[in-house]
Each structure stands twice: as structure tokens, then as C-alpha cells.
């Protein structure tokens, strides 16, 4: 229970993790053996790859946070700092033709799978060159070529999708499998049980990975799940579970590799729980009143990147300056991604209706309401609609602070420029102020679960 003092001071319970249970106890840290050496190092090349991927993710996330503060990024931004070993260890276990699905905390997954940092940063910036053409944003990265089938904004929502992909892999008689990631909070969703049951029943080649960062948004593990050993939650449905040390890239890799082997070769879906910790808030607008600084510090001691790089130096695989150099390369790649994203254009307003439907020669063209009406209805067929809908779209974009007037004028077709809705455009200062409020918790009050609430819609309404 919360102590009187902490209640008075308006802080959460003294020990941070909800009502008195220490996080180490809840996740049975001793049993997992954080910090212990569990596996031999792989070859030097692999060590370098793994370390530089983790470094790239760390630097990318740090910079993304800065860009959010500068209002280059809108909406919600969920950083995975602290979870790099889980992300990289798991994705390294995939074969090239395997599929990956993830949650909305998925910048790291995209980078680890090989999506160019430029495309990821451009997506966060809402630009045309983003990996989802600016339509998805931070929570909805996607890269078909890398078989990264998306980040999903609905907790537990991607679980059925991933089982469906596994069904298709099986149906088409391939040897492909899918790694389906979720957070600890998703294990309480109905889709968790439904999907485990069907995956086991139909013997699908899928591995579920719970990235247990010990909080469902701001609710500590033992306050949201009656069973805190999450690897047990699937067993009653016929999906065996294994736990691993999510701060140890080699342990995650080893356990996920084994799980994928079972899923692929024996057609027995598996579940892996990687116990890890996120060092930053749930999203950028998180005052983190549900945990203490000491608790975060305790986990920072187990930093997965430092632990791995220290070991590489200790065992003589890399020298200090080589580690430094890898980190420098990560910083440079991230710098370049910011430059790239900043220069990438916002999506053309004429593309607003692109990709709502599939059009091809076999299928008659479907417009949103009616393709053959003599008059164009407001809000339909925007690219052919003439001035009025275009102006409305421009006004909406201006209201949301998308781009600057000059840039939009350059993009606008000739002859449609004179009626710019410039007076609707908020000043750059106004934007920065609004963003500043969000950073100090303005958004939190409205609740993460309500993307339509006032704060985000003003910031990122155009997306």
C-alpha cells in the first residue's frame, strides 16, 4: 500500500511499482539471473552487427525524442530505450523470408529488420518518403520488402493478424514463420486467448514474443495481470511458454531461435516472454508518477548495450575505440536520417484519397461513395474536384500546422494559388508553445487511450 507520506506528496507509492511490490520481486529477477553470463559470444562479425544495431536504435530513439520536443514529430511517440536487447536479439533470430509484426513501440523493430533509418525518421516526420508514406506515423511503420508487416496501434490487435499470416504461410506450404510481438498489457486482451487457442489448434508457424517492460502504459505488471509470469499465460491454450532475460541480447536470441525452430519444424506455436524495462515514459507525454527514479536507475544499471559492449571489450573482441567508432557511426546515420526527413516533402494534398481502395484493370474503380455521379461531391475525388475541396484540405492542413505556406503554394497546381487560407495558419511560435505543454504532461491528462482527444488532434490532426 502507498505510504501516507507518498500519498500526501502526490507521488505514487514509495517503491514506485504500484503498491509496494518491488519490480525485481514481481518479475523474479533472481530466477532470470539478470547480469549473469549465460551464453558464449558468437563470431566477431555477428557481435559487431548486434552491437551496432542496438546502438543505432538507442541513438535513433534519443534523437526522435528531441525531434518530438521540437515539434517535428506529432501525435504519440513511444520510445524503446532499454529494450534494445530484446528487439535485436529476437529479430536476429528470423530468417530473411520470415515475417515480423509488432506493437506501436516499433521503431527499433523496423531498424533491426533493415528498414533504412531515413525512411523511419521520415515517417515520424509525416513525410512522403516515410516507410508508410506519412500515412501511418510512429505507431504504424511498415516495410513490405523487409517482411516487416507493421506496427499496430491497437493493443492486442495484431495478434489475430499474425496468426493469419502464419495460416497463410502454412496454407501456401512455405517454410516461413512469423514472429509476433506484443507488450505485457496485451496479454489481458481477449485476442490473446483467442489467438493462442487457434494458433495451437491449427498448428501454425508463429512465435509470440511478449516484450514485458513491466508496465501496461502506467500500470505496473502486478497491478494489471493476476499471473505475473506471463510465459504461463498461454500454456493452458496449448502454446508452451519460455522466459528469457530481455536485457541480454544473446539470451533473447537463443530462446527465440529455439522457439522459431519448434514453430517452423514441428508446427507448434511458441511463446517467449522477454523481461525487460523501458527507461523512458510510455509515450513522450508521461510524467512517470507510477514509478520512482530509483527504480529506473536500478534498471539502468543493467543497460543492455553497455553490458554487451563491456563484455566485447573484456573478452577482447572489440577495443574501446572501436566501440566508440560504432557508436559514432550510429550517430551519423541518425543525423543523416533527420536531414533526410526534414528535406522530404509532406505528402501532396492531392494524394489524400490515395490507397483507400485498390484499383486495377480487372476491378472497376471504386470511389469512396460514387464513381459515376455527374457532379463531384464534396469530399470525394479530391484530385478532380476543383477548388472547393482543395481549399478545405488546405485549410485543414494549415490548421494542423503542416508545412509552410510557400511549400504548399509550390505544390499547388497553377491557377489555384490565389485563395490560400494563410490567415488560418498558426504561427511557428504558437506551435512550439503548444508542443511544450504536451511535453510537460498536457497530453497525459487527456489519456493515451484517446487519440482523438484535443491535444494530439491539434498537433497531428492532418494525419
Amino acid at each position, binding site marked *: 500500500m502507498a505510504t501516507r507520506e507518498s500519498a500526501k506528496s502526490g507521488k505514487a507509492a514509495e517503491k514506485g511499482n504500484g503498491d509496494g511490490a518491488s519490480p525485481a520481486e514481481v518479475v523474479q529477477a533472481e530466477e532470470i539471473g539478470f547480469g549473469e553470463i549465460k551464453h558464449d559470444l558468437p563470431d566477431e562479425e555477428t557481435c559487431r552487427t548486434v552491437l551496432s544495431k542496438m546502438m543505432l536504435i538507442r541513438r535513433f530513439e534519443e534523437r526522435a525524442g528531441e525531434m518530438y520536443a521540437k515539434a517535428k514529430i506529432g501525435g504519440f511517440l513511444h520510445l524503446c530505450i532499454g529494450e534494445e536487447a530484446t528487439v535485436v536479439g529476437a529479430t536476429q533470430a528470423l530468417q530473411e523470408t520470415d515475417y515480423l509484426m509488432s506493437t506501436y513501440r516499433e521503431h527499433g523493430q523496423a531498424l533491426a529488420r533493415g528498414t533504412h533509418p531515413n525512411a523511419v525518421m521520415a515517417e515520424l516526420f509525416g513525410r512522403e518518403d516515410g516507410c508508410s508514406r506519412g500515412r501511418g506515423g510512429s505507431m*504504424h511503420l511498415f516495410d513490405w520488402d523487409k517482411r516487416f508487416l507493421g506496427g499496430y496501434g491497437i493493443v492486442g490487435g495484431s495478434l489475430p493478424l499474425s*496468426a493469419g499470416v502464419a*495460416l497463410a504461410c502454412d496454407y*501456401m506450404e512455405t517454410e516461413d514463420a512469423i514472429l509476433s510481438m506484443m507488450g505485457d498489457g496485451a496479454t489481458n486482451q481477449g485476442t490473446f486467448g483467442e489467438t493462442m487457442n*487457434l494458433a495451437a*489448434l491449427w498448428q501454425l508457424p508463429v512465435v509470440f514474443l511478449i516484450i514485458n517492460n513491466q508496465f501496461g502504459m502506467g500500470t505496473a505488471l502486478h497491478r494489471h495481470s493476476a499471473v505475473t509470469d506471463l510465459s504461463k499465460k498461454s500454456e493452458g491454450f496449448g502454446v508452451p511458454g519460455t522466459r528469457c532475460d530481455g536485457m541480454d541480447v544473446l539470451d533473447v536470441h537463443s530462446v527465440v531461435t529455439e522457439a522459431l525452430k519448434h514453430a517452423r519444424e514441428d508446427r507448434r506455436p511458441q511463446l517467449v516472454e522477454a523481461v525487460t524495462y523501458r527507461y523512458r515514459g510510455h509515450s513522450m507525454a508521461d510524467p512517470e508518477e507510477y514509478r520512482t527514479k530509483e527504480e529506473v536507475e536500478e534498471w539502468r544499471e543493467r543497460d543492455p548495450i553497455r553490458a554487451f559492449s563491456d563484455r566485447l571489450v573484456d573478452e577482447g573482441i572489440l577495443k574501446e575505440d572501436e566501440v566508440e567508432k560504432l557508436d559514432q557511426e550510429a550517430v551519423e546515420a541518425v543525423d543523416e536520417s533527420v536531414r533526410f526527413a526534414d528535406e522530404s516533402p509532406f505528402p501532396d494534398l492531392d494524394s489524400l484519397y490515395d*490507397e483507400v*481502395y485498390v484499383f486495377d484493370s480487372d476491378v472497376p474503380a471504386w470511389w469512396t461513395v*460514387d464513381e*459515376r455521379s455527374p457532379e463531384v461531391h464534396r469530399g470525394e475525388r479530391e484530385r478532380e474536384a476543383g477548388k472547393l475541396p482543395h481549399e478545405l484540405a488546405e485549410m485543414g492542413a494549415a490548421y494542423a500546422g503542416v508545412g509552410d505556406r510557400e511549400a504548399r503554394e509550390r505544390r499547388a497546381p497553377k491557377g489555384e494559388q490565389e485563395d490560400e487560407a494563410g490567415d488560418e495558419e498558426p504561427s511557428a511560435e504558437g506551435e512550439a508553445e503548444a508542443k511544450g505543454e504536451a511535453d510537460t504532461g498536457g497530453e497525459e491528462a487527456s489519456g493515451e487511450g484517446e487519440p482523438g482527444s484535443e491535444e494530439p488532434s491539434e498537433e497531428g490532426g492532418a494525419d
Partner: protein
Amino acid sequence: MPTMRYREALNQALREEMEADENVFVMGEDIGVFQGAFKVTQGLLEDFGEKRVRDTPISENTIVGMGVGSAMIGLRPVVEIMTINFSLLAMDQIVNHAAAIRYMFGGQVKVPIVIRMPQGAGHQLGPTHSHCLEAFFLHVPGLLVAVPSTPADAKGLLKAAIKDDNPVVFIEHETLYGQRGEVPENGGPMRFGEAAIRREGEDVTVIGISRMAITAQKAAEKLADEHEIDAEVIDPRTLRPLDLDTILESVKKTNRAVIVEEGWPHGGVGANLAALIQEQAFDWLDAPVQRVTGADVPMPYSKPLEQAAFPHEEHVVQAAIATFRDI
């Protein structure tokens, strides 16, 4: 032309498309061994086997989600939801994923799934199995929505739905499964977005949705016989895309419109259609657009109450007559 029942026409469409493309498969609750709650999938298990005719547990959200996932990498699933009320359990996957995935991922994937479900009152199935919820799906960009009322349309539109690369919500009607009608032999897929004029007329346009297209036709006969009103009856057949042209042309000819639907009045198909008509044919209207809808209540079980809660011919007749009053 051969005649067959609505359910047989659907069965034929499934069969033909499964024969034509081995990536087409069906899944749903009790569609295999049990042959389907409404026997639409009768015989498919025997002919196509368990791989392609998959009985599922009662997990609507996950069944639809798995359909979407499998469609993303190349299959063409036809998912049966036992009744439209159960589709509410799958609304997350339908709206957040089936409809949105292509758009939110910048066009990198398509989701060629068909989600079939019956709707409608008349069998005393009460407040959790009898509603008409086509307006829910009409609301969602990214979905196609079909509401066939005849065996021929059921077959032609289901074939089109399976061939289409977009997610389709295919809404059948429980009381129509046993209805017979002519179905063209070797008929191919129909086009979405083409309304049918079921009866030509000069005086008033009556637009009937799903089963109400049939109710509207019966009402039109009554209007002609008893009231000397010559009604034109239009069945839109698909709501997304909607063949607004045919409707507007008719309204511009008759200057009057009545919209008949079984669903609830607020935010219904008729509400939307009335708005489109007044936006685009206001100057041609001689009377306010009339709507005939289901009662604004959860569907009651008791037979007299149930019968009172959805439109019958007489309601449509009265609404049509109302468009001639006060002018």
C-alpha cells in the same frame, strides 16, 4: 433461366470461386461439419476438404483478424460471421485493420477479404440476433458493402466480392435464404455500384435496402392498384460504392423519394441517402424525402412487437402517399 434459393446461389458462388482460385478458402463458426448455421456452406467441406473449409472456435474478432492477416500475404479468405450482431465483436479488426491497413501503410498491401453475415428480423431471434447494421459498415472508408436482395444478386455480387482486392462486408438477410429466384446460368461476377431498377414508374422513387427492396416492390404494386400511384423501385444492391446516378436520375424524373430500410433511423442508410439527394437534387424535389425505418428500439422477441418493429408494405405505401400531401 434456372431458379434457385438465395442460399443455393451463395453456395454456388463460393463453390465456383473456390474452384477457380485455390487461394480462396472459407472459415467461420460451424460452417463445415455442421454445414453452416443457415446452410450456405452446405457440402463445401466434403468437396474442398478441411484445409479450405475451416470450422473455427467462437472467436469472431480473431477469425476476422486472421482472415485479414492471411489476405495481407496473398490468400482470399471468405469469413462467415453467424449473424451481423456477432460482427460487433469483430469491429476492431474490421474497422481498425481490414479497412485501414492498406491506407495506413501507404498502399504497400491489399486486403482481399470477404466478411459474410446475415442480418434482419422476422424469425423472433430477439435483441442480439436480429438487427440490421449495414449503416455501421457504410460509415467506414476502405470497406465495400453489399446488400443483395435476390438470388441472382447474391451470386453475382458474392463472386465479385471474392474477386475484388478490397475488403468487402457482404450482408445477407436471414429471411431471404429460402427465397427462390432466377439466376443466370454461368453468370459471372456483377459490378459493385450498379443499382437495379426493380419497377419503372413516374410518380415517386422508392429506394429499398436489402430485404426492403422486396417490401418496396410489394408496396409499389399496392400503390398502383389502390392509389393510382406509379412508383419506381430502386434496389441499390451495394451501399459502398453507391450508384447515386440511378437514384438521382429517378428522383429528377419523379420529384419524390421514399427510402426504406430495416435498420434504425438515426444515422441510418436513409439518413445518409436523404442528405445526398437533397444536396444534389434539391431543386427537383416536390416534397421532403421520406424515410421508412425500423423502430428505434432493440429488436423485441415477442412476435407482435417484432412485426411492429420493422417496415411492412403498408408503411411504405403511407410514406409514398405522404410525398403527395401539402403541395
